[in-house]
């Protein structure tokens, strides 16, 4: 077993999936010879050849549309968008075709493709490289949306995404690509695509988050522990569908909840979770549910990007507000 990073978990899962299923192909800009701009596909073209690890022309709409076409004809394309901002032209094919293929043909055709891309800010990248568009995708019927936050979940969730018979958007929080190393066994074990992960048990408050915000949320939980406050931390991981039961069950025990997301606040995934708690969790809540989010602004250029994102301080601020209510 090797200690690997999140991005190495991605690479390991890609290699595993390509090994076990000949219909899996990887395509995208710079994924072949260069191994991807973050090296997520490093070594794959050397190992599997240029017919299975395909450098595409610079054409995002084409990457998405061709993947839809390949998936409907017996292949399993795993397409890479180089950055989250470059998925916008792909949305036509994801929303209007990938997510509808099975339904519109009454099951005659299906679209088992994966679109994976780095998401979120915090790496001093240029404009359009740092957004968090998960809510856009989570709003689309017929697709699944996944965001891992650890090397082992990157591995297990990507394997599940590739094996899934329907389209999956797999978003990689690039700020934590190399944050942690973890022992990950290349055992081919997939993780479920509809289950939250409880990263830390607690009894006083539930902190719900996903992606790179897991880092700040765990740090906040550490600081709370030092003050004698026990915070449960849940990594939602699958943003569509969301395992609300785990969240509601946790809040039923703690009575308090803060949701942390990097994406803008308005109509975000945090809003959906809060709305669900207002319905199924209302009688166990001792305090209002708070959301700590990115602002409803354009993601600033990198000098201010960390001011945009929820900080440990902002998380603790919200936690204190929620704990003050008796």
């Amino acid at each position, binding site marked *: 077993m090797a200690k690997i990073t999140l991005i190495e978990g991605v690479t390991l899962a890609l290699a595993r999936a390509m090994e076990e299923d000949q219909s899996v*192909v990887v395509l995208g800009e710079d994924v072949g010879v260069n191994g991807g701009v973050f090296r997520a596909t490093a070594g794959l073209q050397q190992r599997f050849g240029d*017919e*299975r690890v395909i450098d*595409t*022309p610079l*054409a995002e*709409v*084409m990457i*998405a*549309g*061709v*993947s*839809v*076409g*390949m*998936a*409907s*004809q*017996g*292949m399993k*394309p795993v397409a890479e968008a180089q950055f989250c901002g470059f998925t916008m*032209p792909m949305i*036509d*094919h994801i929303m*209007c*075709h990938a997510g509808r*293929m*099975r*339904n*519109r*043909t*009454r*099951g*005659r*055709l*299906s679209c088992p493709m994966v679109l994976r891309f780095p998401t979120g800010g915090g790496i001093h990248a240029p404009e359009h490289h740092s957004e968090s568009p998960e809510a856009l995708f989570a709003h689309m*019927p*017929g697709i*699944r949306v996944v965001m891992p936050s650890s090397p082992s979940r990157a591995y297990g969730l990507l394997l599940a995404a590739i094996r*899934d*018979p*329907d389209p999956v958007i797999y978003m990689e929080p690039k700020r934590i690509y190399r944050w942690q190393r973890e022992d990950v066994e290349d055992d081919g074990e997939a993780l479920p695509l*509809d289950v939250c992960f409880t990263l830390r048990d607690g009894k006083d408050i539930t902190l719900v988050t996903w992606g790179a915000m897991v880092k700040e949320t765990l740090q906040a939980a550490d600081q709370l522990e030092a003050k004698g406050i026990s915070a449960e931390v849940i990594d939602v991981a699958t943003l569509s*569908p*969301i*395992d*609300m*039961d785990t969240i509601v069950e946790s809040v039923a025990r703690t009575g308090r909840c803060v949701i942390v997301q990097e994406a803008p606040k308005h109509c975000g995934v945090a809003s959906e979770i809060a709305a669900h708690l207002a319905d199924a969790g209302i009688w166990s809540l001792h305090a209002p549910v708070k959301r700590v989010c990115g602002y409803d602004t354009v993601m600033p250029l990198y000098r201010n990007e960390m001011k945009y994102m929820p900080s440990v301080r902002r998380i603790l601020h919200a936690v204190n507000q929620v704990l003050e209510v008796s």
Partner: protein
Amino acid sequence: MARTVAAFKVDHFQFLGADGKLLDEQHVPAVARDFDRLTDLYRLMTLTRAFDKKAVALQRTGKLGTYASSLGHEAAHVSIGAAMQEEDCLAPMYREYGAQFYRGVKMSEVLLYWGGDERGNDFSGPRHDFAWCVPIATQCLHAAGAAMAYKLKNEARVAVSIVGDGGSSKGDFLEAINAASAWKLPLVLVIINNQWAISVPRSKQNSATTLAQKGIAGGLPSIQVDGNDLIACLWAMEKAVSAARAGKGAFVIEMLTYRLSDHTTADDARRYRPQEEVDEAWEQEPLKRLRSYLIDQGAWDDQREQELLSECSQFVQQAADEYMDLVQNKPQPLTAMFDYMYADLPHDLVEQRAYAEQFPEDGGHH
């Protein structure tokens, strides 16, 4: 000093004149003498037109939703179907019924789709063909993807996609050309240039002399044919499909025709185009010229024409009856909107499905 580093030309092919005479008796493709085949295709073109008339009538009497007519495109459409093999893959837009009927899609399935029932897309014809595609030109990339799949799997199959003059302005079309060129895909892209994208004429799409030359710009052999001449359409399609099947890469064919109908039944073309233009286009339409040719050659006559017309009206009535029976007597249950969303319905949709079942009386057909 400048030197020419690239030059190109676009050839236009026509064999059959609007009067039903061959333009040059000495230079015609073999199919021009295959009267059994031409007669069969003429029959299908006639059936397609009869179907079209019936579909418009069903819409006008409130029995069908918005419908996109294929009137005037019969030669282009039927030639596409006729040039393909069963295992090839068609990625249509939404009015190429002639191609689909040839491939085995049922008339009642077309009616189901425009009649608001997803079962229409569950073709009994080639099960791997793509569904009707409303987002313009996106189908070109799906066909490129299908072609990519066949190439990677070493299958001798060809993908064919159809786009309009309007659709040729979209990036998807151009990106499909580009991908097909980069990867030498077994793909045939057919531009059916019917001169009108709803109310916008061909002249307003761009100032290029032909649309075929967009393929040349991307590195693909590209030609233009008279889209009202079945012989030219079929000759070009067969040439392109067999080249693609032989591993020679992709091909672009621009078929020049005319949309004799409104864009759809929801459109009124009198608002934006002169009747004289439509009258002139009727002089060029594809059925009349093929019929004249076949009669001249002794392969067709009035009696056969009358028999065919009565047969066609019987077939289209049967299709309409079958469609009406399905929607009236065997409608999809409310839960059908959930049941094909995913291979395994996620838990939240299982809940919504159960919830929806509590309100079966809501929102009946209006």
